[in-house]
């Protein structure tokens, strides 16, 4: 399923920004709300090895260009093998946007990683299980 992302458009210059903003960054004009599809092209990406407090290392961040030119900052589970220009899907998991073709395993991994961040010890076993499964997949 492709996610729908809230955005807004400038009636004067047609700039689309996501998430929506009250005013166009370049014109003192109220923007019109709209929804755009959560699918786009990777403009650039990085992997941060000393992320700020509250984030796990390594932190994968990408800038993705959605339809109508809106550029969107999101996380990913991995940037290895990712190419600038690749088409990715954006999906919200627990109110945070992630890029990638999310398979079941990716979904599970992201879910468990975030659950772990909240400090839920109960997830530890499930997380290590998921990791084992993923490691197996990486080797293969």
């Amino acid at each position: 399923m492709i996610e729908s992302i809230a955005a807004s458009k400038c009636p004067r210059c047609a700039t689309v920004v996501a998430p929506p903003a009250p005013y166009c960054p370049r014109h003192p004009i109220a923007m019109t709300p709209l929804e755009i599809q959560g699918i786009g092209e990777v403009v650039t990406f990085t992997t941060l090895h000393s992320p700020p407090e509250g984030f796990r290392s390594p932190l994968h961040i990408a800038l993705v260009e959605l339809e109508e030119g809106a550029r969107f900052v999101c996380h990913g589970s991995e940037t290895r093998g990712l190419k600038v220009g690749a088409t990715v899907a954006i999906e919200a998991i627990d109110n945070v946007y992630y890029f990638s073709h999310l398979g079941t395993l990716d979904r599970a991994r992201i879910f468990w990683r975030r659950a772990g961040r909240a400090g839920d010890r109960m997830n530890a076993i499930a997380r290590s299980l998921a990791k084992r499964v993923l490691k197996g997949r990486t080797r293969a």
Partner: protein
Amino acid sequence: MASVWIAGAGMTRIGRRGEALPDLMAEAAHTALSAALVETPDAIVVATMNPEEFLGDGNFASRIATHMGFAEVPALRVETATSSGAAAFYTGFAQIAAGLHRRVLVVGGEKMTHLSTPRVSELIGRSIDPYERSYGATMPALAGLITRALTQQGVGLREFSQVAVKNHAHAARNPYAHYQQPVTLAAVMESRIVADPLRLLHCCPISDGAAAVLLTAEPAPVRVAGVGQGTDTLAVRHRHALTSFRATQEAAKAAYAMAGFGPERVDFAELHDAFTPFELIALEDTGLVPPGKAGRATLDGDTSLDGRLPINPSGGLKARGHPLAATGVAQIVECVWQLTGSASGRQVEGRVALAHSIGGLATNNWVTILERHPSGRA
């Protein structure tokens, strides 16, 4: 518009300093004042990016003025994130150009090394768009995104690594620099990854320090030929371009227009290389080298101390150090010392210098052009 001159310049050694920020700023200010043979200025412009958080001190213009013995001199503070020093210089310039004052002291400084690196990173990161910050974007992260986009255009790791090698080599000849040691290309290219493809030695250090200049309405050794400001969206995702900075291009355009000449007359420059790829971007955005040629010019040695167009003779932010609000003023101090022949050990030849300062992730940038007095080293 009346001409504005720089009659004195001073700065502290940049690095890990034990002194309190007001002491560092007083040291720089008194050096600039004595160089200008002025005891008391008509006004003071203070630049500090975030003393509220770094030090827990507010009302900083009065704090500094009183500490230096100028409690009765009008003082104000200017802030445009990491380019605050350049913004303060502009403010002092404008005060004299408008005829409001005849002698203005501009002093910038920052004290950061007493805090942990993650804390400093977080405080500097507050100048980033809040939404991007909520995704963990720090300055190195955004610089990593920009550097990846640059590499897509053919700029190689060797090119932006060579910037670090060059600037460290310059700093090794500058007694005021944070780093006094040269680095090898291999060491830069093999340093640990911070924000892929950026590595540790592509990033500037965390430093303490202060710098000051005394601006006057009376002719002095160096004239301010032009000052320009350029701005862009706070959010990097709203930019039209990633591999050039509109804020620099507009600042340069405005500064050249005021000066009445273009980049062809610039002999050397201090550019904002908080991350070494930014020096390559700035070289092209200021028009000092044609688009797409900055990497080649760097590898060919054109931008070295003995090159055709020396860039960052001080060592730049990369190796002289980057005490935030001190930096914009420190760049101008270096240009003044170079123009007046007092940059021993790293002296370059030239009549016209350019200083370029980036505020935030290139949201509020400045270009300042300085010219040696026609009569020579007055």
